[in-house]
């Protein structure tokens, strides 16, 4: 573990409004000029994307624009053919602190061949911290908290195969939360999710963001998550088409540190884009 283990949210508590504690200078994810191909087809053609500490960034764009490939590249699951990826300031090649990252892959409709309970699936999220060692009481407590955070505590002993799409998605998010990550990376967390589950997920994420967790997620539309989002990055044909700040939708309740500087000029840009000017 070469990376300094900084307690979650330290920066938030100290950031008294100055650059709001989430400067682009200290990104948790930094893709620079990222190129990637699936098979022989180039999918990413020079993506620049950074997520600052405590920032919530949504990737938008049409189908095939490279959203999913971008987040899969950001977790090292799609090899870059050009450009660079840094996680928490460490180049991917040397990055080992996977426990700081919680990943929610796109929900697959293909079920595993053997039943598993909700709790068993969520417990896998602790392996980032435990590795090959057995799980202990602290791990069980973290799993219980993660299940409660997404409102699935009552279903802990049910088979994941018996859940609706929205409930299944909540389980996958709980699995990522179980590792108590500092950064959440989510691929289409709202796809096929009913409205009730969308609201539960929005509240759960709001609580995480309030604690200082950074988020990078792929969305089709902002929906109930709009109030959380600091910045949207719209992709098109494997390139960044534009960056937007849905500021009016922003909910200060999820970003308590923002209200630390209430007298700031309203016209000032609230959030660094993370892009070179």
């Amino acid at each position, binding site marked *: 573990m070469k990376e300094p283990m900084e307690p979650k949210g330290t920066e938030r508590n100290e950031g008294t409004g100055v650059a709001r504690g989430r400067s682009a200078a200290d990104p948790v994810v930094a893709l620079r000029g990222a190129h990637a191909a699936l098979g022989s087809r180039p999918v990413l053609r020079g993506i620049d994307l950074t997520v600052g500490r405590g920032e919530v960034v949504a990737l938008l764009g049409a189908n095939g624009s490279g959203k999913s490939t971008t987040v*899969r590249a950001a*977790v*090292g*699951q799609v090899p870059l053919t050009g450009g660079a990826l840094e996680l928490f300031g460490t180049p991917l090649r040397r990055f*080992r602190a*996977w*426990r700081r*990252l919680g*990943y929610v*892959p796109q929900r*697959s409709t293909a079920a*595993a*061949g*053997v*039943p*598993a*309970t909700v*709790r*068993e*699936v969520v*417990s*896998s*999220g602790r*392996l*980032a911290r*435990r*590795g*090959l060692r*057995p*799980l202990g009481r602290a791990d069980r407590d973290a799993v219980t908290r993660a299940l409660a955070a997404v*409102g699935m*505590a*009552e*279903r802990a*002993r*049910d*088979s994941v195969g*018996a859940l609706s799409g929205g409930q299944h998605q909540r389980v996958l998010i709980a*699995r990522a939360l179980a*590792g108590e990550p500092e950064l959440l990376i989510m691929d289409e967390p709202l796809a096929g999710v009913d409205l*009730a*589950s969308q*609201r*539960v997920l929005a*509240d759960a994420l709001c609580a995480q963001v309030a604690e200082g967790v950074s988020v990078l997620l792929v969305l089709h539309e902002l929906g109930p998550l709009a109030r959380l989002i600091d910045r949207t990055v719209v992709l098109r044909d494997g390139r960044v088409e534009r960056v937007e700040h849905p500021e009016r939708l922003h909910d200060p309740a999820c970003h308590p540190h923002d209200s630390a500087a209430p007298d700031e000029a309203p016209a000032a840009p609230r959030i660094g884009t993370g892009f070179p000017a």
Partner: protein
Amino acid sequence: MTELLDYAFMQRALLAALLVGVAAPAVGIYLVQRHQAIMGDGIGHIALTGVALGFLLSTNAVWTAVLVAAAGAVAIELVRWYGKARGDIALAMLFYGGMAGGVMIINLAPGGSTGDLLTAMFGSITTVSPADVTAIVILSCAVLAVCLGLRRQLFAVCQDEEFARVTGLPVRLLNLLLAVTAAVTVTVAMRVVGLLLVSALMVIPVAAAQQVTRGFAVTLGLSVALGVLVALSGTAVSFYADVPPGATIVLLAIAAFAVLAAFTPAAARRRARLAARREPSGMLEGEVARGG
């Protein structure tokens, strides 16, 4: 009933059956979990080359079969990583190559003929030697150490490989370990049920158990219990009724599957009732708590 314990060869047979009954489903559950139920069968084909090599070199066939099967399992795993579209054809060639290699090598051995492979293909539990028992005990302990000791890690890898990689688990190492463990299990089970039927004991107890279970740990426990039950009772039945043990064990496993399948609708109805009773409170959490 204790009559069969009077014979040393039956004591060895029952010990071997017990160990295989535990080990085969304990590995098989991970293969079933990632839809590779047939992999044990392929490894069994490849192991034939190892059996023939043992015959050719006049050494204990269990050890040569372990080596060749493990190499074959690693090759299967490599095909899975790199093979992509043509993977199934590569696997088919590996399986049939293993079988043809076995037949070829056994016929090259002095005094060897294809018939010598039959005991390996269909099992001959009553001819398990003390040396075989030693090998079987050592190998099954190794198998169980991997399958139970690393069950959370193997579960995570077989449930969602991409997620497991992002948690920093050594996924490739775990996959190779599982492949080699499956190969070892196939060879251990070779004397008991035979290479052609070994996959049945890895898959059917798991398939039977999961009809009435909701979780992985419970499925693992129940399938091991079923594996032990059919392996021991099959061996005993074959002693008294003078029928082939391997086939008896597999048919008993299928019977266990059918019995549990018959109970499943009742169990499912009961579960649905329980779920219906729980649902209102589940909705409370999702809906009312939000003033919805």
